[in-house]
């Protein structure tokens, strides 16, 4: 089929000459995209070598990564089943998910001193005696003999039962694993969820279901004679020894206070100074210049520097965080405010001036009503972003939830607590974003 639209020679020549810029781009403009892409790829390749990405990934502890990620949404009970006097006794790690005399349904002690550990179902269980551990994997028994120096797996054992030096590891997947050693069996039993999230084992509310908790809260019989049951519940919750709700919530509040006070003080500080920096309001070039350079200076010093500097001065806590946010944002807000002031409509100022108002009154009625919505909306933007950055500032030493997160991550075993704090932070950030969005749209709506 021939073209519906036909252009003859003269028309083509005319188009070519009238749209030369479109049809005859210089070569570097035509090749900009491929050249840019190749340059980017080359640069990324350079960085791959520069940052040693390959070796770092090869040496990464990927088996641990899976474990850490599982810890986010599940918990491990880690009893050590020790052999002594022909008997098996369970000792618990310091995190103590069960009280001393608790009845544990997956760990049964028999009268003859042996123990049964079940991993999810009857088909997957360990029968533990000091001389012989029988591992049932999928219903098949495998006898693991315990010698004086070494533990030996049966020769026909499946992949789940693995000899590792002098010990034998029995792997039950997500449900857990057991390390059979010469003097003990180290059991890791994994369950979905977070253990003892509401109440720890010291609390009278431990192990109750929500309905029972409410019943106990409302019952007139007092657990602690000095205060009401409801009060006890709140105290037990906040004082939860493992989850430290009280501490975490107060650290979260510290972070929020850092962002709020820092941004507010920066706003109050930048507001008057922006009038000095604006060319059209203060008619003195040297003063404008000096003020603007002051803003640039404050803005350009990294928040990290302010944070670490004030941490040296005041010790860890919200004060260095406030100071860091204040100093950086005073500069940034000052700059933004001054730019907004320089763009105001001059007619309103002239109107107020023409009736003989003093300079301060001119600014109050001729300038402030115009710029206030812009100022507040900018400050809200900064508040939003500072709520996020206050976490990081905290981690470098200013305190708050950031430092708490860093501590929890440093132990490498509290990833469930990290997940909890992340959820809190996400919730708070979402709530504050919505508040600030609502305020901003109301403000901008009103200014129209």
């Amino acid at each position, binding site marked *: 089929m021939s073209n519906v639209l036909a252009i003859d020679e003269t028309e083509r020549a005319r188009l070519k000459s009238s749209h030369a810029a479109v049809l005859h781009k210089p070569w570097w403009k035509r090749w900009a995209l491929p050249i840019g892409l190749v340059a980017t790829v080359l640069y990324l390749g350079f960085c791959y070598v520069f940052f040693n990405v390959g070796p*770092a990934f090869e040496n990464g*502890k990927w088996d641990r990564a899976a474990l850490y990620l599982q810890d986010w949404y599940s918990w491990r009970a880690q009893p050590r089943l020790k052999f002594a006097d022909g008997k098996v006794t369970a000792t618990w790690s310091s995190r103590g998910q069960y009280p001393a005399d608790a009845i544990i349904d997956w760990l049964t002690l028999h009268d003859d001193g042996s123990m049964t550990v079940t991993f999810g179902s009857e088909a997957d269980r360990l029968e533990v005696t000091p001389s012989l551990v029988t591992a049932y994997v999928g219903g098949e028994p495998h006898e693991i003999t315990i010698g004086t120096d070494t533990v030996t797996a049966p020769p026909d054992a499946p992949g789940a039962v693995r000899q590792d030096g002098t010990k034998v590891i029995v792997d039950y997947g997500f449900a857990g694993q057991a390390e059979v050693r010469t003097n003990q069996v180290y059991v890791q039993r994994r369950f979905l969820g977070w253990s003892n999230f509401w109440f720890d084992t010291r609390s009278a509310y431990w192990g109750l279901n929500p309905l029972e908790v409410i019943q106990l809260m409302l019952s007139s019989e007092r657990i602690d004679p000095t205060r009401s049951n409801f009060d006890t519940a709140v105290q037990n919750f906040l004082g939860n020894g493992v989850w430290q709700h009280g501490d975490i919530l107060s650290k979260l509040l510290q972070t929020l206070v850092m962002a709020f006070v820092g941004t507010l003080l920066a706003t109050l500080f930048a507001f008057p100074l922006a009038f000095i920096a604006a060319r059209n309001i203060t008619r003195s070039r040297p003063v404008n210049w000096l003020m603007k350079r002051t803003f640039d200076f404050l803005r350009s010093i990294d928040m990290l520097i302010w944070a*670490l500097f004030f941490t040296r001065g*005041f*010790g860890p806590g919200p004060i260095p965080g406030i100071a860091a946010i204040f100093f950086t944002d005073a500069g940034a807000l000052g700059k933004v405010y001054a730019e907004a002031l320089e763009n105001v409509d001059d007619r309103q100022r002239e109107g107020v001036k023409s009736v003989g108002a003093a300079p301060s009154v001119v600014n109050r009625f001729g300038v402030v009503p115009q710029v206030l919505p812009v100022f507040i909306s900018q400050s809200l*933007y900064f508040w939003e*972003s500072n709520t*996020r950055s206050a976490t990081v500032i905290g981690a470098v030493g200013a305190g708050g939830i950031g430092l708490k997160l860093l501590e929890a*991550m440093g132990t490498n075993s509290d990833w469930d607590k990290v997940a909890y704090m992340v959820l809190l932070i*996400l919730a708070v950030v979402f709530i504050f974003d919505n508040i600030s969005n609502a305020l901003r749209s109301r403000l901008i709506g009103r200014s129209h």
Partner: protein
Amino acid sequence: MAHLAHDPATGGISDATKTVFGHYRQQIRTRRVYSIIALVVFAIVLAMSLNFANAANSGKFFERLPYLFDFLRSFVPNDPLEIFRAMFDLPSPYADGSMKYDFTSQRFYLTETLYIPHFIYELIITVNIAIVSTIIGGGLAFVLCFFAATNLVGAGVVRFVVRRIMEVLRAFPEIVIAGLLTAILSIGPIAAIFAISLHTIGALGKLFFEVVENADMKPDEGLRAVGATWLERVRYGMLPQVLPNFVSYTLLRTEINVRASTIIGAVGGGGIGEAFRLSIGNNHAAKTYAIIILLLVTIIAVDQFSGWLRRRLVGNQAFEFGRGAA
């Protein structure tokens, strides 16, 4: 018209005007009362926050203020040249074997004699972390943003999912990503790159899809009329309009990411941030000032360069919501 006429006997204002004026006064008064109530509440919240901050801090503000000045007074290098010796790894005349005056041992040798000074090398790492993460994060945000825009994607589910992913990435604390990767890959810049890249996807993705949603749909309509596929519509109808703004936002992100990579560096990402934390923690005054000057110069240089580039690309229009999704 008579009631609106000027009446010199009653002070020049008619009854109707008086009523209007009265209503106006009434409204002003109500507004003023509301403003005062808002200010008082604000002041109380601020006072409570300040009080809480002071109580929660390990040192109290007024108690510690003199120490801050003492610290400043004691935190002075032996002579101003020391700062530059620390910056360029030249031997110090005060060398006594301690780390405080040891400027030379951490040089990064390119050849037998040519070296990159330690802090400048760390600075190069930090800036490169920022650039790499902006490229990776910006690239992924670029791909994702078209799926989050109402005017390009009909399926509400896709839009919803992509937007939620962006929101979570934006709000997810960077230190947790950095910390998790540090635990797996050991301390180093990769953790920082990951953390900042993921955050950049969220932040830039949001700005990008807002640009796409505000784009003119006429070119798209034209392309649709001649039967262009979705990809072709994006490529020829959307991309030419949004690219300048995308580039401008990406440059702005680079500025923010330079700052972010120093901070992440201090919590385990390596680079100049970590060097700074160590030097201020160990009371190495000359080194600390050297790093402050280096960082100041770098940040000003990056800001100026990206500002210049942005102005060339889009003029002044794209400056206003720079920190919108920071």
